[in-house]
């Protein structure tokens, strides 16, 4: 994937993510209209000059809701990924260094987590902790942790027996120091790729959960929630569903493209 053709999508992806990042940081810059301002009279107005991407059932401006929704959606994605990676880091490191038995134990735990479909895990957890953004975030993070953990473990185990570590040992370095200075940092490097990837996926998942009515509470504009709200009016106001959906797809796709190119860059 290193032909000149692959450059364009890479740039596009980066630009897209930057745009949404900007939206998350300073939404008012991109969308001055109040995303919460209702106007029953103007409900369901189609995309046009007045409302770039139309309005929803309460006459709220969809464009500005998407822009203002970027923050919570990206935050959800980021937080979930962070939780997933954090958990994975602990498990992976334990498995990677804890010696055979710990490795075995963690391996089993990961297996069990894998054997449960992600959504079931999420649903049970949400039922356990009650719905809400926080739980959704944790639930999504939880479902993605095992994958990451497995990756980290593999990384660490590969590094443990690397010439680099051997060289450090020959130079008389302590095990603990080798772990901190050489193994962990190098094991974490590929996580950047995963994180980017996870972001998109986490957002996707959070959306699915809010489709099942487990999302963030109204009126906070959140893409998943907007999407499931718009679904009801699909035949009447397609734009209510289409544009938030588009935002999600774009971010997820952009994240993938970026992480793939990062990976390619790393391997080169």
């Amino acid at each position: 994937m290193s032909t000149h053709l692959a450059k364009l999508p890479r740039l596009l992806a980066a630009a897209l993510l930057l745009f949404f990042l900007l939206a998350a940081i300073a939404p008012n810059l991109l969308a001055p209209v109040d995303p919460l301002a209702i106007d029953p009279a103007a409900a369901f107005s189609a995309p046009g000059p007045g409302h770039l991407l139309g309005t929803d059932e309460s006459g709220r401006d969809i464009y500005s809701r998407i822009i203002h929704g970027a923050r919570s959606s990206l935050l959800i994605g980021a937080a979930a990924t962070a939780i997933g990676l954090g958990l994975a880091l602990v498990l992976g490191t334990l498995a990677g260094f804890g010696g055979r038995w710990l490795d075995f134990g963690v391996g089993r735990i990961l297996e069990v987590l894998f054997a449960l479909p992600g959504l079931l895990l999420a649903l049970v957890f949400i039922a356990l902790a009650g719905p809400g953004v926080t739980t959704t975030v944790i639930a999504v993070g939880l479902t993605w942790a095992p994958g990451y953990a497995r990756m980290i473990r593999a990384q660490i185990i590969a590094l443990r027996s690397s010439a680099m570590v051997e060289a450090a040992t020959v130079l008389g370095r302590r095990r603990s120091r080798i772990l901190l200075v050489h193994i962990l940092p190098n094991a974490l490097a590929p996580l950047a790729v995963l994180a980017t990837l996870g972001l998109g996926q986490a957002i996707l998942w959070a959306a699915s959960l809010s489709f099942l009515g487990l999302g963030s509470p109204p009126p906070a504009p959140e893409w998943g929630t907007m999407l499931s709200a718009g679904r009801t009016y699909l035949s009447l106001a397609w734009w209510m569903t289409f544009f938030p959906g588009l935002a999600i797809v774009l971010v997820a796709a952009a994240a993938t493209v970026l992480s793939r190119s990062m990976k390619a860059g790393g391997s080169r």
Partner: protein
Amino acid sequence: MSDFAKIQSSPSGVAGTSHGTRSAARWLLSKIMGGIFVLWAVFTAIFFGLRMIPGDPAQAIMGGPGSQASAEALAAAREQYGLDQPLYVQYFAQLWRLVQGDLGTSYSLKSPVVEVLAELLPPTLILAGLALLVAWAMALVLAVLSTRSGAVGVALGSGLEIISAAVPHFWLASVLIMLFSTMLGWLPPVSTNTPAGLVLPIITLALPLAGFMGQVMRDSMAEAQRSAFALSARARGESETGVLLRHSLRHGALGGIALSGWALGSLLSGAVVVESIFARPGLGRSLLSAVTARDIPLVTGVALFSAAAYVLIMAFSDLAERLVDPRIGRS
């Protein structure tokens, strides 16, 4: 995402992964032991996990807290379902029943979980199975076609995959319904007993999956295309198509096979959404209602089933990999 899928599918963690030369019997044994362990662990985790959910199970039995069930009724229910006994007693009792293949009685449906599963399994399996097949076909065809047609094709192909892998199920479903049922009127929006009724649900499930698999397959295929053995094949006079079909395709398939365990999970998760949108009977839909209804036996049943399915699929994909690739299991 292909990377993610790879992580998901890396065989390292699978029950009883084979290392060294090991006889088929040993392999099988390790698989079985691993599987049993996983099932036990899942059962235990779910059992205690669900007990932590706020709310009295007896309420769930009486049809949720909304029902103004009398104290007697609640007591009766507790007694009937053995909820009056201490937790560890319940645990071992259920474990023992599980060993005998009895999953208890569903709180919400009032009928044995085994029966419920037996009734709801086929539709889900049909849906998931067909979706998996279609996804495979889509992924392969797309991967081959795009790889075949050079850099542009690859770019287009992977773009298509990335997009389709990024589409939320429920969104796709709604759009498909609007397009093919409401606007064009070609296909029924609800799944009926007719094959036509299966088309939309299958596409909804298959498309994102195909996106994932396609990426993995293409990656391994592209690798093969660049490899030295591909070059020597060309040097033997093999045509590009020949290289693709005789060499790269196998390597691509290998990448796909490794994914099937993960695919199963995503299919079941997808089924939850798809089944409720297309009003199909099935496991996914009952899972959702079971969790919201705090129907502990049913949730446990579904969880155990999907865990078992996962273990099975992993075993099979491991087997398949060994058949395609002798390197695994030796090395």
